């Protein structure tokens, strides 16, 4: 249908996650319409992000220049507690709570043999090396509450507990501000399991 540069752009956009052929076509035509400087800003942003950002050598979060990310370089952070997550995006989610002041460790995924992901493909060895270096006393495993995430959490707990690290898992339960009647049985069941005494 389309040829040359337009075809190439649609194909490239279509390879992005969450973008199907129709979205790719719509975005490509949008780019075709916008002023040249806007298009340049977009392409520059893509080039710059690839040139200037790296993965933190300690926790594998996204780092901007330098070997360490902003969180690992921050002296105010509690070095004794780490939060183990699957993906750098999860750090953003935990950071938004403003309730965690330790550091992170990004595994880069979850155990998923079907997709060929085992401990070797995750940053597990690097996590153990950080534990070996001392200091870390507690690990909070914040993997996703699905089958693969739960398996990964258990795997991490079984590795770290013998090393004297306190390992905990995020609680599952009801969304704040939600309605009980809309909760699915599984979530409600978990919430019942994890109920807490009301302090009076």
């Amino acid at each position, binding site marked *: 249908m389309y040829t040359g540069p337009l075809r190439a752009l649609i194909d490239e956009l279509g390879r992005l996650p969450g973008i199907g052929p129709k979205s790719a076509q719509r975005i490509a035509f949008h780019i075709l319409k916008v002023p040249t400087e806007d298009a340049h800003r977009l392409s520059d942003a893509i080039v710059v992000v690839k040139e200037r950002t790296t993965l933190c050598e300690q926790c594998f979060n996204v780092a901007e220049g330098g070997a360490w990310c902003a969180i690992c370089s921050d002296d105010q952070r509690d070095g004794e507690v780490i939060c183990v997550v699957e993906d750098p995006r999860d750090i953003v989610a935990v950071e938004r709570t403003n309730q965690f002041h330790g550091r992170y460790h990004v595994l880069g995924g979850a155990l998923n043999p079907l997709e*060929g992901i085992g*401990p070797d493909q995750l940053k597990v060895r690097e996590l153990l090396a950080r534990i070996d270096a001392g200091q870390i006393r507690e690990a909070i495993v914040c993997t996703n509450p699905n089958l693969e995430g739960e398996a990964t959490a258990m795997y991490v707990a079984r590795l770290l507990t013998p090393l004297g690290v306190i390992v905990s898992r995020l609680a599952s339960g009801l969304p704040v501000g939600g309605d009980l009647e809309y909760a699915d049985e*599984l979530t409600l*069941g978990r919430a019942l399991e994890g109920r807490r005494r009301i302090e009076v």
Partner: protein
Amino acid sequence: MELVNFRIFGAGLFSPEAEGTTVVTGPNGTGKTSVLEALAYLGTGRSFRGAPRESMVRTGEDRAIIRAELDNNDNPTLVEAEIVPAGRSRTQVNRKVVQGRKELSTATPCTIFSPEDLVIISGGPRGRRDLLDDTLGFLDPEGARAADVVERIQRQRAALLRQSGGKVTADVVSTLDVWDHRLAASGMTLVKARERLVRDLVEFVGPAYGRLAGSEGRALVGQHYVRSWDDDLLTALQAHRSDDLRRGVNTVGPHRDDMLLEIEGREARTHASQGEQRCLALALRIGVHQLVLSRTSVIPTLLLDDVFSELDPARSRALVAELPPGQSILTTAVPLPEGISVAHIIPIGQLVRAS
């Protein structure tokens, strides 16, 4: 219900009566069973004929779509399924993607009777396990969930076993430990749910068989759940680990269990006549249907595929008498036995024409 590129239908529209019996008539090979297959697919995520996905898609097309509007106790539900043999098939309920047994069965509750049901009795254990797990979808959310989870863990574990290539490294051992623990936990939940279900079914299946077979309760139906391992599942998994690694498959677990069915103390699979087996298969389906009706507010739609062709008129009438009111859809290529009241007859040709 609307069909697009499903089996022989390029486009089809099917509107059965909400209450009472709708009969789909037509010669062989015109798509009567496919209509039921499409409805049942919405409720179970697979073909009740055991057909692979690609055979449900019209030749030359890359995907099939089934769309149905259901009333579900005045709770209007839009269920849409896209069947893509080469890619990811998915089902949406009210435009939200769902996949678990429970979610599918509550959105499109149905009970299917078909000549293939004979295989539940005469075939391997898989058909019997599927029957139990599908029923859990109606009755036991925790058990149904466990069935889905066990299936996924088994797939992950099998992939890990294959990848290890029989080599036992520290990584393989430590990750297998994790999957074994999860499999043992969900597996026990599933097995206990199946065992409970088998006990609950006994009081419905036996009497139903007696009435169908006209044997005045002489035929005693026995049902037992048979675990494929002894003692504790986790211990069994660990005991069979070297075997699993060598063969690259899951050799123990709920996916190897069976439900033993007996008529007068003899195993139905090997000892019963074909007539007895057919009767028992019907009794099982009726038992499930009645158990669901007695325990929940769900009224599954009855789908009867060509069942009368296999039964004598007396048994056909006994079957229909067993079926409670509600919506039922049946297909037939032969005239209906006497004494069966019908609300609506749809010749299959009417479906194909609609666009």
